């Protein structure tokens, strides 16, 4: 996204928002994972209200960006997929939050 010359300086941080985090569904996933150490697929589905397919595709995008780590473990014979934010993912979310905060704090009441 490019900013026009007329765009107020205060809005510039919005132009550099991380697109990977910015999508509403991914933002829900990242925000939830930010508060936790890790969660499995079902827990994330319940908390974000995303469908299995949606969650799966958004997690793939986040995994490609190296923002989440998806680890398959076995509890007995049952496979569990635990998902956690990587340090890069945490940093990306922190930065995204700061950028938004910066813009919104300068808005009039």
């Amino acid at each position, binding site marked *: 996204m490019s900013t026009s010359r007329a765009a107020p300086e205060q809005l510039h941080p919005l132009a550099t928002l991380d697109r990977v985090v910015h999508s509403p569904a991914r933002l829900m996933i990242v*925000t*939830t994972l*930010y*508060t*936790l*150490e*890790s*969660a*499995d*697929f*079902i*827990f*994330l*589905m*319940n*908390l974000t209200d995303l469908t*299995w397919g949606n*969650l*799966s595709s958004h*997690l*793939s995008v986040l*995994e490609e960006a190296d923002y989440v780590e*998806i680890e*398959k473990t076995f509890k007995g014979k*049952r*496979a*569990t*997929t*635990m*998902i956690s934010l990587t340090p890069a993912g945490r940093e990306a979310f922190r930065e995204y*939050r700061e950028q*938004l*905060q910066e813009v*919104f*704090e300068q808005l009039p009441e």
Partner: protein
Amino acid sequence: MLQIFPVSEIEKKAFRATFQDGIWDLYLGAMLLLLGGGAIFEELGLSGIQESMVALIVTAVVLMSAFFLAKRFITIPRMGRVKFGAERKKKIRKTRLVLAMSALLGVAVFIFTALSKGQGSEFSALLPIILFSVNCLVVFSLGAYFLDYTRAYLYAWFFALSMPLAILLRDHTAHAFIIVFGFFGGIMIIIGAVLLIRFLRNYPLPSARYEGNGA
């Protein structure tokens, strides 16, 4: 400061989600009934059982096992698995410490009661009951605070009031223990049952095609 992402609130909501199944309520309600168990057995005229601490301990173990089995086979398959962050783990550790101290106090009260049986003033007879009630109030309130389990504040009062109330009513009504423990324990069990039914309806088992599918 403007809070665009109230992460601590989101974490709280995620943690509270693990209490939506009503299993804690059912377990605590059953434990309260069990606390009055000896006296209830006596009121029901089941002689011999009241003397049998073994029966009460076995029931407690069965209840605890049922609690863990329910969490494993009802809650986790529907709600999923989650590991909370360092801050929450610290709160859980604090709760465990409070519970351990409460158990130690319980043992001390039990020993004190056993040693002072049949001797001493009326106050020393009432002291174990007072300690029991204060212990319940403190432990449940701290648990409610550390675990964000707000219903435990109410349960703190149920546990704390049950024993003194039953003793107060004992001289005025037959089956005081059944009435008091049944009432408080019953309310907790009803709350738990309603929550469990709602949980089962809101969180059906993910269909078999999702099992082990991963991301």
